C-alpha cells in the first residue's frame, strides 16, 4: 500500500520532469502552433490587480477585456477567437515571475501582455525572452531595462524619456519657471527612471534644481520632505511617483502651503490621482501618451466602448486596449498564424496602425512610436493642454 503510493508519486515526478525536458527541447512554437489549429489566440496578461499599483491594473484589465470582446465580435481575425488569461502579479517581482512561468509553461500562451510595472518587468521579462515567448509591455515606461532585455520584448507604452521632455518644455513655456525642486520614489525602477529623465529634461532646459528629496513606496507621510522643499522656494515642484503616493504628495504639499505649479510623471496619469488628491489636484500638469480629446475615429470608438461598459478610461486603459489591437494586427501580418514566433515577426511589420493612442508603429528598438501630449487637471478632470 505504502509502496504503491510511493511509485505513484515517483511516476508523477518523473512525468513532470519529462514534460519539462520536452518543453526545453521541443521549442516554444509547438505550444503556440497547436493554438492556431484550434483557431484561438491565447493571450496571458500579468496585471497588478492588488498591491501598490492596483489602480493601474484594474484600468488595464478593462481595456484588455473591451478589446478582446470587440475583436471576438468582429471578423477581422478570420474567426480566430482571442482567449484572455488575466493573472494578478500583486505588484511584486516574485509573483510576476510565477505568473510568467505559468503563462509560458502551463497555459502555453501565444504572447504575454504586461506586467504592469517596469520593476516587475525587469524581473519577469527575461523568462519570456529565454522561453522565446513574445511580450508586449502595455504600461512599462522605464527608458532602460525593458525592451533591451531581448528581441522578444516589445512595448506600446511611450517611455518617460519620450513623454517628460515635452511636458517640461510646455510647462516652462506656460509658467516661465526659473528653478525647480524634485521629489521621487527611490525604491522603484519606474519612479527612479522617471526622476533621471526629469533631471535631464530640466538640465536641457537650463532649469537649476534647488532641492532633491526622496521617499519609499509604503510611505504615507511626506511632510518632512515637502517642508524641506518649500523652504527652498522652488518655482515648480516636479514629482516622480506612483498614483497612490502622488495623490497624497500633492495633497500634503498644498496643506503645507506650497502654492506653485506641480508637474508629475506618468504615475499622475490616473483618475484615481484626481479622486484621492481632491481639490489639491487642480492645476497639476502631466505628460501623457494618450490624448483623450483626440477626435480620431479609433479614439472615439474606444471612448464609446468604454462608456458602454461604464468605465472611465485613462491612459492605461487606452494602452491596454491598443495592446490587444496591436497583437491582433501582428497576427494578421503573420498570415493569421498564432505561433509565438509568428506574432514576434508580425510585431515587426505593424505600421501606422490606427489606435486610440494615434497612428502606432514600433521603433527599431521595439519601443512605441506615436505622438505624446500634455494635460492639466481642471475642475477635477484631465484636459489636454493645447
Amino acid at each position, binding site marked *: 500500500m505504502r509502496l504503491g503510493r510511493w511509485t505513484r508519486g515517483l511516476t508523477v515526478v518523473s512525468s513532470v520532469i519529462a514534460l519539462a525536458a520536452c518543453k526545453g527541447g521541443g521549442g516554444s512554437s509547438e505550444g503556440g502552433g497547436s493554438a492556431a489549429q484550434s483557431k484561438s489566440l491565447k493571450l496571458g496578461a500579468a496585471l497588478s490587480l*492588488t498591491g501598490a499599483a492596483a*489602480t493601474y491594473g484594474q484600468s488595464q484589465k478593462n481595456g484588455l477585456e473591451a478589446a478582446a470582446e470587440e475583436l471576438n465580435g468582429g471578423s477581422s481575425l478570420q474567426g480566430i477567437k482571442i482567449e484572455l488569461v488575466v493573472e494578478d502579479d500583486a505588484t511584486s517581482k516574485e509573483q510576476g515571475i510565477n505568473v510568467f512561468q505559468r503563462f509560458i509553461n502551463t497555459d502555453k500562451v501565444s504572447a504575454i501582455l504586461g506586467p504592469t510595472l517596469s520593476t516587475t518587468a525587469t524581473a519577469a521579462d527575461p523568462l519570456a525572452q529565454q522561453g522565446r515567448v513574445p511580450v508586449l509591455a502595455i504600461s512599462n515606461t522605464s527608458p532602460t531595462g525593458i525592451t533591451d532585455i531581448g528581441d522578444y520584448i516589445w512595448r506600446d507604452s511611450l517611455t518617460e524619456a519620450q513623454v517628460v521632455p515635452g511636458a517640461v518644455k510646455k510647462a516652462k513655456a506656460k509658467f516661465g519657471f526659473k528653478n525647480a525642486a524634485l521629489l521621487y520614489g527611490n525604491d522603484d525602477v519606474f519612479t527612479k527612471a522617471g526622476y533621471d529623465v526629469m533631471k535631464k529634461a530640466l538640465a536641457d532646459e537650463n532649469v537649476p534644481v534647488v532641492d532633491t528629496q526622496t521617499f519609499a513606496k*509604503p510611505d*504615507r507621510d511626506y511632510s518632512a520632505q515637502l*517642508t524641506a522643499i518649500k523652504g527652498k522656494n522652488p518655482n515648480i515642484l516636479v514629482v516622480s511617483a506612483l498614483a*497612490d503616493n502622488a*495623490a*497624497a504628495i500633492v495633497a500634503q504639499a498644498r496643506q*503645507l502651503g506650497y502654492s506653485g505649479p506641480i508637474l508629475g510623471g506618468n504615475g499622475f496619469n490616473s483618475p484615481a490621482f484626481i479622486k*484621492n488628491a481632491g481639490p489639491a489636484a487642480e492645476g497639476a500638469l502631466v505628460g501623457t501618451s494618450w490624448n483623450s480629446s483626440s477626435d480620431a475615429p479609433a479614439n472615439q470608438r474606444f471612448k464609446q466602448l468604454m462608456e458602454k461598459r461604464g468605465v472611465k478610461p485613462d491612459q492605461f486603459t487606452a494602452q491596454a486596449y491598443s495592446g490587444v489591437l496591436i497583437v491582433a494586427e501582428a497576427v494578421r501580418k503573420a498570415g493569421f498564424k498564432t505561433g509565438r514566433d509568428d506574432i514576434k515577426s508580425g510585431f515587426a511589420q505593424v505600421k501606422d496602425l490606427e489606435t486610440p493612442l494615434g497612428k502606432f508603429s514600433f521603433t527599431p528598438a521595439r519601443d512605441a512610436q506615436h505622438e505624446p501630449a500634455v494635460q492639466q487637471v481642471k475642475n477635477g478632470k484631465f484636459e489636454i493642454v493645447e
Partner: protein
Amino acid sequence: MWQQAINGVFVGAIYALFAVGYALVFGVLDILNLAHQAVFTASAFIALAFVAGGNLPLTIALPVALLSAGLIGIGLERVAFRPLRGRSDSNISGLISSLAAATLLEAIVLQIWGPDVERFPLGTFPDKPLRLLGATVSALQLTIIAISVALMAALTAVLRATRLGRQIRAVAESPRAARILGVDVDRVIAWSFFFSSALGGAAGVLFGVAFNSVSPDMGRSVELKGLAVIILGGMGSIAGAVVAGFALGLIEVFTVVQLGSSWRDAVSFGVLFFVLLVRPSGLFGKAAIREA
C-alpha cells in the same frame, strides 16, 4: 526647523499610539502580535465605511471604529492565541498564528473594499491651517496629536488606577501568581487585547484621516516602525513605546532635513541598532515591564 519639529511630533504621535498596543500585549503575554497592523488597517476601513458610506461624522465613526477594533482584538485572542496558550513553544507558535491572522484580516479587507487606495471624503474634518510661530499647523494635526496623547493617558490611567489595570499588571508580572491570587487570567488577557487593538485601531483611523489614504496595505508602512519603536523603548514598556514613538518621528524628520530623505530609514534603524548595542534591553529596559 520649527515646522519640521511639528511634522516629527505629529508622525511620532501616531507611531507611539500604534506601538503602545504592541507593547501592551507583549508586556502581558510576551508574544508579538503581528496582526496588530491588520487591525490598524481594518479599523481605518471601518471608520471609512461609516463616514463615506453612512454619512456619519468622524466624532461618531472614530469611537465606533475604536470599539470594533477592540472587539476584533478579543476575537483575535480567542482564535489565534488562546488555543496555543500553555504550549511550551507558545511564543513562536503565537507569532506564527498572529501572522496568519494578519493575512486573513487583510484578505477580508481586500475582499470587501478592494485593492484601491480610498480616502475620507473631503471636508470630513474642517481642515484649517493655523499659523504657529511661523509654522503651518492644521487644526487636524493638533487634534490628532491631542487624541493620541489623550488615548495614551487614558490607557495609563486604566492600568494604574483601576482594578482591571492592577490585574493586567499582575498578569504581566506572573500569570501563575495572579491566578493563585484569584485573578481570572483569561479575562484579563482578553481585555489587554481589547485595549491594545482599540489603540491600534485608533492609530489606523487617525493615520487614514491625516494622510488621506486608506488602503489594504497601509498597515505595512507602520508595522516595521512600530516594531522598531517597542524595541527601542524596551519590549513591553508602555512609557518606553510612547517616548520611542515620538523619538522615531523626530529622528526621521531631522534625518530628512540634515542628510536627505534617502537616509531616513537607514538612520532610524541605525539608531535602533546602536541603542541595542549600548542598552540591549531598550531605553526603558526590563524593569519598566513590571510597571506596565
